[in-house]
């Protein structure tokens, strides 16, 4: 076979595969406009986030802020803060809005704040900024970007050297392509629906109707075409109402921006004694970088007359010494020395009622945080 012929066949096959996978990946997703739908969410309800990408999830909430005006307090953090629901502790979304993004850290929180600043939509009083717990699995994201924001945020607001912006855009484009072609969005997109009968749902749902452990409702009643056909032909038994991990929980955004669903399967198992931490992924000297990035955010607040408070949520664990902790200790102490306000809650690690699980704190923790904020 000649090199030219080989090249043509190879590239054509890749193209066909790419288009096929990309089509399957997009199949069934976003059948409606989630941004418009989010405005109709009422307290006690969620906008189901099936098929909504991370960069859209933040835009949905920011769009609402731009339309309806900013809240009194804005909470900016990673997925660890996603269940900090103001609604659950009696506040409204006008009081506290949660702008969590899955793996966000300081550099991208700064970008989101600049976007809000440019649109006169910064929280009216207080900007609450999550600092990653040094023992959390995403600790290194505290100073590194994760490219989960809308692409124009980086181009417009990253305020970094051009080389950084180019790097961000290239990596983000890569992340988008990986996401589009990835197994999760293709194979699972097919088998979740027709094969397993999970029937991805969209739109608004009451939190009480959600479930994190079962197909919703039992698979046989759904549109699982292949499964239903096999059952009708007597080739397959009707499944019992059992946990179907492939379906996953129905999760979504509450009106206050937090993530809501029934959390019956969440457990808060304390870290066993002596569980080793992986070596600190951050280079020595990163404490200074943490403080530098905190300064940038504090400056945004100062410029606009807003109070900026950094907080480190606790992890449900037994005491553990680590280089990581020492690094954050250094950063916190230096930041306080420079006049920044930091609430360090690492020592709340024993208070079981503050946790849903080892890393996820509950709205009770938010109450605690807000109480401390008002002191």
């Amino acid at each position: 076979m000649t090199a030219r012929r080989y090249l043509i066949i190879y590239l054509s096959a890749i193209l066909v595969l790419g288009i096929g996978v990309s089509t399957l990946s997009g199949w069934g997703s976003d059948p409606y406009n989630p941004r418009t739908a989010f405005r109709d969410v009422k307290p006690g309800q969620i906008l189901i986030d099936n098929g909504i990408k991370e960069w859209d999830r933040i835009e949905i909430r920011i769009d609402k802020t731009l339309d309806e005006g900013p809240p009194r307090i804005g909470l900016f953090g990673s997925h660890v803060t996603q269940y900090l629901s103001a609604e659950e502790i009696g506040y409204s979304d006008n009081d506290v809005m949660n702008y969590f993004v899955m793996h966000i850290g300081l550099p991208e929180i700064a970008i989101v704040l600049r976007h809000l600043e440019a649109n006169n939509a910064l929280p009216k009083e207080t900007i609450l900024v999550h600092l990653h717990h040094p023992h959390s699995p995403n600790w290194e994201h505290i100073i590194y970007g994760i490219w989960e924001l809308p692409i124009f945020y980086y181009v417009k607001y990253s305020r970094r050297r051009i080389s950084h912006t180019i790097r961000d855009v290239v990596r983000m484009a890569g992340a988008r392509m990986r996401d589009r072609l990835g197994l999760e969005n293709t194979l699972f997109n097919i088998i979740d629906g027709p094969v397993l009968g999970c029937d991805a749902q969209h739109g608004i749902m009451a939190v009480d109707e959600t479930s994190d452990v079962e197909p919703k409702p039992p698979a046989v009643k759904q549109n699982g075409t292949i499964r239903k056909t096999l059952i009708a032909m007597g080739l397959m038994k009707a499944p019992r109402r059992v946990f179907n991990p492939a379906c996953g929980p129905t999760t979504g955004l509450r009106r206050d921006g937090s993530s809501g669903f029934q959390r019956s399967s969440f457990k808060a198992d304390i870290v066993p004694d002596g569980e080793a931490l992986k070596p600190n992924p951050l280079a020595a000297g990163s404490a200074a970088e943490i403080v530098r990035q905190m300064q940038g955010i504090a400056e945004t607040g100062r410029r606009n007359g807003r109070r900026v408070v950094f907080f480190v949520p606790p992890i449900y664990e037994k005491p553990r010494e680590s280089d990581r902790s020492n690094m954050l200790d250094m950063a916190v102490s230096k930041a306080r020395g420079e006049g920044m306000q930091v609430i360090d809650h690492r020592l709340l690690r024993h208070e079981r009622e503050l946790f849903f699980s080892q890393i996820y704190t509950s709205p009770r923790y938010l109450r605690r945080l807000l109480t401390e904020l008002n002191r």
Partner: protein
Amino acid sequence: MNFNTAEFLLLFLPVQVILFYVVRPRFRLFILLLGSIFFYGMSSDIAGFLLVNTILWAGGIGYISSKMIHNSGWLTLAIFPPFLLLFLFKYLDFTLTAVDPNDQLRSSFQFILKYALPAGISFYTFQIASYLIDVHDGKVEREKNPLVFAVFAAFFPQLIAGPILRFHELRDQLRFIAAERNLRPDFPRAFKFISVGLAYKIFLADVLRRFQETHDVSAGGGSLDAAYAVLAYSFIIYFDFWAYSLMAIGLAKLFCIELPRNFLEPYKSTSPREFWRRWHVTLSFWLRDYVYLKIGGNTAYIRNIAIVFLACGLWHGAGWNFLIWGGYHALLVIAHHLAREPWGRLPGFVQITITFMFVSLGWPLFYNGIEEYGALISVLFAFQAPTDTAQFGYGDWLYLAIPALIVFATREDRWLFNENYNRFLDSPLFHAGLTGLSLMFLNFGRTFIYFQF
């Protein structure tokens, strides 16, 4: 930028290849250089800055000092800055930990310590040093075309994890592509190596790593679990590094450049000495030519072997575990040297098995500190049952059998580097399928292990 990322495979590479073939021949090297610096600069500004400056220094000093190049003082001056940068960015932290346990000096060096290790700094430093030493020794002429030298030092397929090239291996090829109007790239082999390398990385190295790190053997594992962990490390590191090298060979072929094979089925070696002639071949030969022979070679075999392997250990990483790993391999090679006669009487498969076992016992040091390594090895040799049930089940062992079969039951000359066309294994549809499947699994991919070196 990693080879196993969407931005590399679907953005950077197509643009680079297209630009390379649409410009006039004399601009091709410029395109390659620009692309290589962009590729490397994607990791960080400081990494790009160091690379560019090292190239400027080495190329410049070779270019301007024609009469002094055979002077040993010139050589010291020429190689000092690249090795100083290597020391500062790779070994300073380790050195401070060793000599300054109370961290009194550390704060003075924060301005350097705050930077992460620039990827592949060991590779390009060695490559550039080999050029300077060869020029000094009169083995190659100093390069007068700065583009040829710069592309030699920064050629992106091999920049970060090798193979470590000698100048004479690339010089004529670079001059050829800058002059030849009608290039004839070997696309079939190029895409074959890229697709197989990508699949090796994603489906063997990365998946196996996921299985392997599911359990902490020292916490309740039995000896069989420890054996699994050790064997898994062996195949993970081989398929990780070989995948990178294979992709590098394929990528270079897209630009009509031939790179040497860095791995010659090393796990089929019949002795530790042979292993090092088949594993990371270009590093072994670099150490032989520029360290071993320079310090006397066979005149003091045991001492020089010890020095070379300790250097090899340190080259791989700044840590006691790497130093011990290098010392361990020195011991293996020296022990084989001393017992080569009785060793030679053993059947071939016994030699291969023993060599593989001993080499495998060393690999966990690449991933673990000395204490963790000690815990793993003590579980392995305690010949004990697990505290409850075995950590690694049938599925894990079955998956481990796949790389084992590829390594021991196939011959790469027959299916990967074969001369005769195989309708299935050389088919573009097969390679496209393999590439497509790998692209779907990119989310599970990890950084190449050798990026940290």
